[in-house]
């Protein structure tokens, strides 16, 4: 039973998070910041696009460096 739960956990992690946990963590943090800013009446539409510009090269760099 324990092995099956672990296997399902590994599958769920791989399905949702994928190859780089930093991407998933960055998206969650970015959306949380967007939520906080927009609910504080601050214009925040730019935050996720800026996050993409920063996050994607970092994740790619980590992948290339691992090779």
């Amino acid at each position, binding site marked *: 039973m324990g092995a099956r739960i672990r296997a399902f956990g590994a599958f769920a992690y791989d*399905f*949702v*998070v*994928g*190859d*780089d946990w930093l*991407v*998933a963590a960055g*998206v*969650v943090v970015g*959306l*949380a910041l*967007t*939520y906080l800013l*927009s*609910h504080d009446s601050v214009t*925040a*539409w730019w*935050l*996720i*696009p800026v996050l*993409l*510009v920063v*996050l*994607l*090269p970092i*994740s*790619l760099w980590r*992948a*290339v460096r691992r*090779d």
Partner: protein
Amino acid sequence: MGSGALFIAVFLACAVEAVEATTIVLAAGTAREWRSTMTGVGAALVALAVITAALGPAVSSLPLPALRLFVGALLLIFGLQWIRKAILRASGHKALHDEDAIYAKQVSAAQQAPRQGTGLVTDMYAFTLSFKGVLLEGLEVVFIVLTFGGNAHQVPLAALAAAAAVVLIALVGVAVRAPLARVPENTLKFVVGIMLTAFGTFWGAEGAGVHWPGSDAALLVLAPAILVFALLLVGVLRRLPGGARSEQAAAAAAVEVS
């Protein structure tokens, strides 16, 4: 979001998943036996129907801002992973997705496995291989249909687009009885990654309370901007050690020296 854009996005994403599932089913059926393979496909489709019936109403019952935030986050994570892989492949830092090679590997493994059966399933290996392949790729199809369809309040249209993609790819697979290597899968994955990321950015931020300048028209700026940025990154990575351009330069230098 227009119905046409929704249909195209779901159709392309589901076509990619269907190509991968078809390769696995063809390998299981060709190397082992078709009856157990198709029983596995049927069992996986029933499991997917049950999952869809359970998740569909739950997803649809979420309030729209919460749905958009949740779905936007998942689409962004999925989209960025797809783009990341596509950029690494296009720049030569990762091997291209090759359905012929995957098919050969699956067939080789299937031919070596011992034959065991119980009850209706005479070959458990063929059953399990096709069941897992269709279920795992099918889960992604279900996810795409529910997220895109739920957000746009057009689940039937999203389901129709997914069904059209799956049926088309399955028919082509049955007709050619070979892996669908001619489908430009790497290019499709690049395009789908861009679309998932653009929609994830748009819906995720909207769910977090953002009002996009230009409303829905912001998507028409987001998608091309992400595409251009991804192509720029391909160009940069090709020049790094291990990249396609750097390998070509090294090969040319070696020829000149010799």
